[in-house]
């Protein structure tokens, strides 16, 4: 089932083409990898899907509905959760409260409801469930700013999960993590996929990408240069060139 359709999306920043006519689609219960060298436009793509930037041209459909020009919080209400490449926990709040912020917004559509108590039993139950699934339970009272990096990354995911997302945008979840930490994180991502969540994964660690993703989209300088299953991507000469540079021709 198609969850997200990105149709000839372009974005210019003062003459620089960050994205040029990029199209692809993502499905529920599948992990789609987005890879490419630095500056390929991956994070820009996430910022457009989540409503932070407006594209120069193109269209995005989420479950068949146009979401461009919607405000960021509306898009997240529809069920698109995201994490940031550089973790951005709300440092002065504890872990539980961080998740509660994201949870609350799904359940208070009206102004009147939003003045009611935030720590209701059902909300806390849900939040604790999410923390258990993401392995954060032991840290619930810790200030988010004091968590080790691996757990900050988990917190990013936990907050996105509190939105009960249908689609998750994960921006380098394993970046900066030790091997076993990133291994545990992969397990978590697989579990989320098996629950039927569609996942877009930006990742630099090729091992992680090849192991996790059903399909992969390769961007280079804002242009989609390849799309396919991991096997195809691994042997695609254009991809190898983008990553390693052109081979010198000997006469």
């Amino acid at each position, binding site marked *: 089932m198609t969850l997200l359709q990105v149709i000839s999306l372009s974005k210019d920043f003062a003459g620089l083409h960050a994205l040029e006519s990029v199209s692809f689609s993502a499905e529920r219960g599948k992990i789609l990898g987005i890879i490419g060298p630095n500056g390929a436009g991956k994070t820009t793509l996430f910022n457009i899907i989540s409503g932070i930037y407006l594209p120069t041209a193109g269209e995005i459909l989420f479950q068949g509905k146009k979401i461009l020009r919607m405000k960021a919080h509306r898009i*997240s209400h529809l069920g698109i959760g995201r994490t940031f490449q550089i973790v951005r926990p709300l440092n002065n*709040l504890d872990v539980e409260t961080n998740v509660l*912020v994201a949870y609350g917004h799904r359940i208070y559509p009206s102004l009147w409801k939003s*003045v009611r*108590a*935030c720590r209701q039993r059902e909300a806390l139950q849900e939040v604790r469930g999410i923390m258990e699934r993401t392995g954060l339970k032991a840290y619930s009272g810790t200030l988010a700013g004091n968590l080790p990096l691996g757990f900050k990354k988990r917190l990013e995911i936990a907050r996105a999960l509190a939105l009960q997302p249908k689609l998750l945008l994960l921006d380098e979840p394993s970046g900066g993590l030790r091997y076993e930490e990133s291994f545990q994180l992969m397990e978590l991502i697989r579990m989320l996929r098996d629950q039927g969540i569609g996942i877009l994964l930006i990742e630099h660690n090729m091992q992680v990408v090849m192991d996790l993703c059903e399909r992969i989209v390769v961007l280079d300088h804002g242009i989609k240069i390849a799309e396919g299953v991991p096997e195809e991507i691994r042997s695609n000469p254009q991809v190898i060139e983008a990553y390693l540079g052109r081979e010198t021709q000997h006469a």
Partner: protein
Amino acid sequence: MIWQQLANGISVGSVYALISLGLTMVYGILRILHVAHAGIYTLGAYVGLLSFRLVDNFWLSLFAGMVGAAVAGYLVERFLYTPILHLSRIAPLIASIGLFTAMEEAFRIVAGPHTLVYNARVGLGDLAIGSFRLTETQVLILLVSFLILLFLWLFLTRSRMGLAMRACALDLETASSFGVNVSAIIAMNFIIGSLMAGAAGVLIGVYDNQVWPTMGSIPAYKALAIVVLGGLGSIPGTVLASIIVGLSETFFIGVLSIPFPRDAVAFIAMILVLMFRPYGLLGKA
């Protein structure tokens, strides 16, 4: 004697807190200095006075002053700040100073340049225990500010919207990607801050028994000093700094009888604290 001065200082300080908190909340979320907040405070006093003359009931006039200030605060946010927020931060600052001057002139033109009396019967009565004595307006100030601060604290720590406001003060973009309607929360900051400024305007109007067009000028810069002293954007810091400034003003002038301009105390305190704690009393780096 000492208890008397303490009570005087705390009641002065609580009014400072009511004025400064709006400034702190706006700075906390938008990182702009809302100088025109002092204009909102004066507007609250005028609206309160006007409605007092119409209905002759102090509590209704307090309510009217708060609501009038809140509406004005919301309009300022929507039509002055929001359209220019994407510009460099100096633009909202200049716009704010301009608006403050314009408001003072408007008050002068509409209500006249002279001082108006706000001679309200509150109906609380003085409080006297031995030689310790609180006037009716002091009781009023302590009671109203305590209730407002208590309500603010409960709202920020217990309600869902309060939680959203704290999240927005920490990171607007993250908050919006987790479903917080950021523009509604920004508006809410202005509305709540202005409600408190309006209350402060009415309380001071009754306490000094006068309302005049430039009554906001001194609070405008004193609140700025208090907000910096407390640590920019820190709500508990602002309350603490307000009480400290209120107490030191009272003690310097009342107890030590030092011939010293009262309104300079806030700045001396600010300079002293910033020498040792550059981020203010409860501010963070």
